[in-house]
């Protein structure tokens, strides 16, 4: 009961902060006489701070036990960060750590009241852009910016093998950018695709986020110059990699256990 209340409180704070920033802070930033790049960076910073506030609050209330491994790998510039996506919470946890990142999002987030202002101002890239999507992503990478892509395309069903789309692999191959796998495990599953936000978990939410070694992209380009074929192979390997990593225990992180 208390826990349900705590989750409710956190979500309320998050919702209110989100709406208030949509109503106040983002419009102020929009009106400010600065270039679009500067404004985008402000918006991304603001999103980062809001997510961090939410994470700290949830932690402080004893609702969340999250661990982040080898987070310094995220400092690399011009990388494609790919993560599995079990919950809404994983996005918030990642953005709480990433101050500047271009997310690739579902097109409808540009129109949803809760996300429209933030998504547009932060210059997030929508998936519907087709070939222009690859060009935009490659331009961002060439600029030294990082991309955050969830190759499942949407939140995944719990305990099912993942099935990745090939966009992330294509972009990484096209740009020759490092591909950094981020493996997220969560128990119990909360804020999943088929769950309502008020379905409070019966225990502390434990999340482990492991930033793994970047994959060697050059290897795939050398093997086959046809991008479509290379993207198929890379995506197949990436999917296998995630499924294997996710089948192991929650805290069984093979590499360094540095916690953020």
């Amino acid at each position, binding site marked *: 009961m208390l826990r349900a209340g705590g989750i409710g409180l956190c979500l309320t704070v998050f919702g209110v902060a989100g709406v208030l920033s949509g109503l106040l802070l983002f419009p102020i930033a929009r009106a400010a006489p600065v270039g679009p790049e500067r404004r985008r960076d402000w918006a991304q910073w603001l999103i980062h701070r809001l997510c961090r506030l939410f994470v700290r609050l949830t932690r402080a209330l004893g609702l969340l036990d999250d661990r982040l491994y080898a987070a310094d790998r995220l400092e690399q510039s011009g990388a494609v960060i790919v993560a599995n996506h079990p919950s809404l919470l994983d996005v918030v946890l990642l953005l709480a750590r990433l101050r500047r990142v271009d997310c690739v999002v579902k097109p409808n987030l540009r129109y949803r009241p809760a996300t429209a202002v933030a998504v547009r101002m932060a210059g997030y890239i929508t998936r519907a852009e*087709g*070939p222009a999507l*690859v060009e935009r992503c490659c331009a961002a990478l060439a600029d030294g910016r990082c991309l955050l892509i969830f190759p499942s395309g949407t939140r995944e069903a719990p305990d099912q093998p993942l099935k990745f*789309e*090939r*966009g992330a692999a*294509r972009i990484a191959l096209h740009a020759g950018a490092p591909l950094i796998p981020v493996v997220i495990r969560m128990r119990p599953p909360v804020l999943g695709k088929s769950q309502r936000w008020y379905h409070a978990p019966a225990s502390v939410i434990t999340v482990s986020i492991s930033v793994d070694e970047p994959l060697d992209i050059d290897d795939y380009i050398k093997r*086959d110059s*046809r*991008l*479509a*074929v290379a*993207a*198929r192979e890379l995506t197949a390997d990436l999917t296998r990699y995630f499924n294997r990593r996710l089948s192991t225990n929650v805290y069984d992180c093979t590499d360094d256990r540095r916690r953020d």
Partner: protein
Amino acid sequence: MDKDDILEHVQAEIVRLFDLAPASVQPGSRLYEDLDIDSLDAVDLVGELRRQTGAALAPENFRQVRTVQDIVDTLHELGVDHHSRV
């Protein structure tokens, strides 16, 4: 260039571009469900077919395309010139 020629050409091109087994690419094969050709692959395919056939094929023509036969029909309607074939 009649429809059979076009079909043969499209099949060969799909096999070459995406490294698929020739037997799997049939007129009734659905591009996405059966051949796992996504929207970015389709852009490659459109580009190749346009380059090789000279047909004024645009990604918009591909909106309604579901199967291999649909591509053949689209190319046929656009009037692919036999001599422009590589």
